[in-house]
């Protein structure tokens, strides 16, 4: 599920701005995981979050193409 959950968001928007792949968007003042298929599981959102609200998972939400199957 890539970026897994956001709990305790204070609406600062740091994660939205820091996500290279535009996975997170603001909705009614809170960060919402909007395009999880594009998450590259780099954890920048988690590292930029000032209140440690973001939980990550190592699993991709769509099938993964790798060179050796």
């Amino acid at each position, binding site marked *: 599920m*890539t970026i897994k959950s956001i709990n305790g968001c204070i609406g600062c928007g740091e994660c939205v*701005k*820091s*996500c*290279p*792949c*535009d996975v997170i968007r603001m909705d009614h003042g809170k960060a919402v995981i*909007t*395009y999880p*298929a*594009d998450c*590259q*599981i*780099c*954890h*920048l959102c988690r*590292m*930029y979050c000032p209140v440690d609200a973001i939980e*990550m998972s*190592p*699993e*991709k939400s*769509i*099938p*993964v*193409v*790798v*060179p*050796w199957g």
Partner: protein
Amino acid sequence: MTTHEDNAAPTRRDFIALSGASAGLAAIGAAGWAQNAAEIDAESFTNTDHATDVLVIGGGMAGLFAAVKAHDEGAAVMIVSKGRLGASGLTPFGKGFFVFDPKTESGSIDDFVDTVSRSALGTNNPVYTRQVAEHSRDRAAELQSWGYFDQTLAHRPFMRPIEDRDIPLLERVTITHLIKEDGRIAGAAGFRLDAEETITIRAKSVILCTGAGGFKPNGFPLGDLTHDGSVMAYRIGAKITGKEWNDGHSTRVDHPAATFDGWGDMFERVPSTNGVDVHHDLGVDMNYRAYALGNPVSGGPGAPQAETPVAGGPFVPEEFQRNFDSPPGGDGPPPGAGEGGAPGGPPPGFGAGANVGGASAGMAVHKSEGLVPINDRCASTVPGLYAAGDALGSHMSGGIYTQIGSSLAGSAVQGAIAGEAAADYASGRAASVIPDARLAQIRDQILAPLRREAGYGPAWVTQTLQGVMIPNFVLYVKKASMMQAALAYIEELRDHHAPMLRAANLHELRLAWETRNMILSAEMKLRASLFRTESRCSHYRLDYPEVDDANWRVWINIFRGEDGTMQLEKQPFGTWPAQG
């Protein structure tokens, strides 16, 4: 060969033909052809027009220094970034910064350049290799003064010199077009990710600091890098080089897409500097071993032992051979190992456990792939257009990883040089006039995927491209028949899918443009790899396995021919092409 315009509408006949063709492609998760469930109205877009002397595209290490130095040279500067300054592209993830300090190094800069050239089998451009050594200490000192080496996250330290200078910064803007008028650069255009707004920026000079790119692969943090800069530059006539080289980073067998996990704790480390340490790393030798002996490339059950002999494979100079095996346990590279890992240990990016090759599929060795420079100041073949860092095909390291930590340092050094050069170019020069009709045409092209009533989802086209380009037997272990087959697929995507991409919102509009760029980059990689009928550094062909010095002491330049088709030429090592 017919190349469709982006706004060309599909005919009914095209549609019927495509339905048949697409059924044969890989079955994958994202929606393919469908009606466009538009969430926004393309007709409601506004446009904002900017003007500056020097436009810097890209907000990583190269873009930072390009903007700072162009400003300090007296130019009006603007930065536009697809993401956030210091938090997009590969800059946030590199932590080792090469510094050549004559006080502590036992060898001279000449020795360093010679060692790199021996490892790179002549593929490096010694002018740029020398440049990184000569300027790295000054750039590191500036970064130090901004607090870069005191933190884990680069955004705040990067903002300090930008705020001190009041340099305008546009973040979360995707640039889709470079604009050329009267034979020289005139500006760029794109759209905002957070508002229904196109952007045009008129500029006397443009510096592409757009980074590297790949096929949105799993296991390497370049999901936002799709070779946008070099593809846009190619479309306006720039020459592109280095497309045949391959970055050879691996990812973990368990959770291959988890880039953070694959790099141990490196993404959370504070950046540090390192001295001379030249390797011959991360080409395709490990991938060849996996191809010949079975996967994974290292570590874990089933991995061949490092001492297991394997016939053939890429040539590694004896002085640079080492044991690539992953450590049996632990949590990745030891702290302080910098970008390069421990001496004699695994290359950077090798976490513990079983590793599988191909994490960065679609990306070449840093600094080898991008716009062809015509001189030592990062100028491209298009007057007024410069590039720096991974957008410049400087061949600073050559077609293989040589100096540890030189990726970040090279971006800083080249960004600074390009910034000064672009400011000099813009000085005293009048801005080109861009006709309104041309701007209107560009805006129509930008928004075309939003207006399409039906079309291909960009995620589906990307996944189809990945299914063609990422398997190990296409670009990692190459042979003509397989690359020709892949090229047929890519031409199909180029001619019949790229012109029919749909987008329902601004996120998908960005994906649509990234997908178009990846398709063209894939074509470049296949054509360059077919053209180079030898093996050297990170380019390995089963059908031409030997280094061929008689014919291939050359770089390959790619450019758009007058008929719109992709052309290739040889550029002998140590020579520069002409401008224009």
